[in-house]
């Protein structure tokens, strides 16, 4: 690594698919060993990676499983991390409905049936995304490029890009597991405030995902220089 690092940002392309796959998988784990598509759907990480690759190549916007809505941060041209963003409900359907359709189309039927068993638990942690909000989801920095503030820089750059593209945007929101304290600290530092919190008191939830609580943090887009 050279002493002078050039940090840049760019829209993801199909060539970045490997880091996007890692980003989505590692973001799902939220720093834990629990991979929800394994625990809830019974899909191994390797199999999920294959399925997700097919989905990403469809490049269907308005939800987090697509290529074009990811912005990459690069260090000396090397991809160091990525984050997805979109405007909720800007198409025909909500992001959760689009993702549901993609799951129905690409996931094995037995996986969907298995997930139904856990639906009552997962519903307790569900926080609806608000139509018209800029949504951030699936952010990740590769281990070798951590401890340089890249996640915060990437988010600030995404907010700036999206606000320039859509000046009427007012609010950015992000859902995050409460156990992911490192991410929470970064989001707070760049102005996000917890607005909604959901908790599942059933201890079984901790067999599926890393936390019994999820929060939705929001930040105004009217004061990007603060």
């Amino acid at each position, binding site marked *: 690594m050279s002493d002078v690092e050039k940090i840049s940002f760019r829209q993801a392309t199909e060539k970045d698919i490997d880091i996007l796959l890692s980003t989505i998988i590692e973001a799902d784990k939220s720093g834990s060993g629990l991979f929800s598509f394994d625990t809830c759907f019974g899909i191994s990480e390797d199999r999920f990676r294959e399925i997700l690759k097919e989905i990403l190549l*469809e490049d*269907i916007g308005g939800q987090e499983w697509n290529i074009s809505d990811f912005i990459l941060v690069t260090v000396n041209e090397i991809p160091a991390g990525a984050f997805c963003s979109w405007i909720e409900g800007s198409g*025909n*359907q*909500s992001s*959760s*409905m*689009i*993702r*549901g*359709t*993609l*799951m*129905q*189309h690409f*996931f094995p*039927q037995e996986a*969907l049936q298995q*997930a*139904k068993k856990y*639906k009552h638990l997962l*519903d307790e942690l*569900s926080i609806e995304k608000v139509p018209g909000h800029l949504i951030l989801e699936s952010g990740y920095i590769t281990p070798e490029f951590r401890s340089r503030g890249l996640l915060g820089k990437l988010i600030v750059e995404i907010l700036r890009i999206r606000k320039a593209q859509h000046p009427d945007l007012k609010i950015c929101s992000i859902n995050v597991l409460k156990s992911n304290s490192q991410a929470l600290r970064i989001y707070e530092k760049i102005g996000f405030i917890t607005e909604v919190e959901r908790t599942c008191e059933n201890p079984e939830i901790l067999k599926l995902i890393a936390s019994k609580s999820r929060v939705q943090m929001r930040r105004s887009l009217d004061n990007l220089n603060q």
Partner: protein
Amino acid sequence: MNHIEILNQINTIFRRVFENDSLHIQMETSADDVDEWDSLNHTVMIVEVEKHFNIKFKLKEVLSFQNVGDMVNIIHSKVTSA
């Protein structure tokens, strides 16, 4: 099979999938109108509709649905051209 017959049959499927016997859907009904219509129930509902009418939706068709009427129209075109 006409559009009303398809709508009535879909209503029966919706009541079963969404576990709501009082559900009464219209052509204009969308996911926003049905509390139980979330992403996972959506996947189950699509599978059940496909099985019932013995059809297969294309991905782009499902993603184009804005309301039940859009689904009814596509089902009608598929069952009448079969």
